[in-house]
């Protein structure tokens, strides 16, 4: 995967949310939501994040990842289910017309900074 690029994007976006008078305070935690369908490896992401945040307000910050399970909704019978094996065929009606409703997230939820 491209965890280094993702880590860069996270820092870029999160930096734009730091207050103007942040000075030499520190970011303690970055809260992320990552869907299981994205193929992102959280440990690799943390590794890249630690490297690129040296000597920045994000140095030492925890990357807290909330895993999001893959879910799909059947357009034929409206059944919504958690996709825990690689199949998007509706387990209820065997239909093949489903939409992914969760599992592709790659979101920054919030950042936590020292008081």
């Amino acid at each position, binding site marked *: *995967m*491209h965890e*280094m*690029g*993702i880590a860069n*994007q*996270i820092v870029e*976006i*999160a930096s734009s*949310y*730091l*207050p103007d008078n942040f000075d030499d305070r520190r970011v303690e935690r970055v809260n*992320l939501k990552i869907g299981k*369908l*994205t*193929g992102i490896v959280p440990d690799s992401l943390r590794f890249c994040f630690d490297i690129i945040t040296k000597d920045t307000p994000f140095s030492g910050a925890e990357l807290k990842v909330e895993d999001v399970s893959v879910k799909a909704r059947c357009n034929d019978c409206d059944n919504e289910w958690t996709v825990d094996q*690689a*199949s*998007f*065929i509706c387990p209820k009606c065997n239909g*093949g*017309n489903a939409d*992914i409703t969760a599992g*592709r997230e*790659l*979101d*920054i*939820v*919030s*950042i*936590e*900074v*020292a*008081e």
Partner: protein
Amino acid sequence: MEIKVVRKVLDANEKMAEQNRALFKDKGVFVINVMSSPGSGKTTILERTLNNIMPGIKTAVIVGDVSTTHDADRLAKSGAPVVQVNTDAFGGDCHLAAHVIENAASQLDLDNIDLLIVENIGNLVCPAEFDLGENLKVVVLSVTEGEDKPVKYPLMFRVCDSAILNKIDLLPYLDYEKDLAVESIRKIHPDMPVFEMSAKTGDGFDAWTDWLKRCVSEK
């Protein structure tokens, strides 16, 4: 103190992809993004595709590779304008991103192009995540790979609009269970067209180009 952010990490790419999509629509260019693992035969498929659909459909190609211009050199022989993108100039990336397409497309005369084919970097993971502003995504799988690739890389097979199963001329020499591969694709994307072909011999090729021509004419 918690500061709410609630932003997609790939926001910047998605905005650029929408910008590309608007430009291509304005110029009347239909765009397909062809993805696969390395060595599945993308370039051979595109060589034959170009020979088959040109000059009727004015086609250009953007080729992504980590390095070298080998694929672009092969495709340029068709007479189609080809832009080579080497991602090592962008940090050795494993996928093409929307800003790379914007830059490459600016080197093409979009007013004189009906179809733009993007040959993505050989990789079944990362390119699936990056919208380029294309109309259709196509995944290529070859019979020298595992039958279970679709279930190993579900996002790729889910986001694509059609699949090509290439190198079927090799089936007599392999233990490959083709039906298992097709079934594996169907699990992930039940209604997706699957074109079984050999880009080398041309066997099964017309179904693919007929489909592509129809998609372009319906744009």
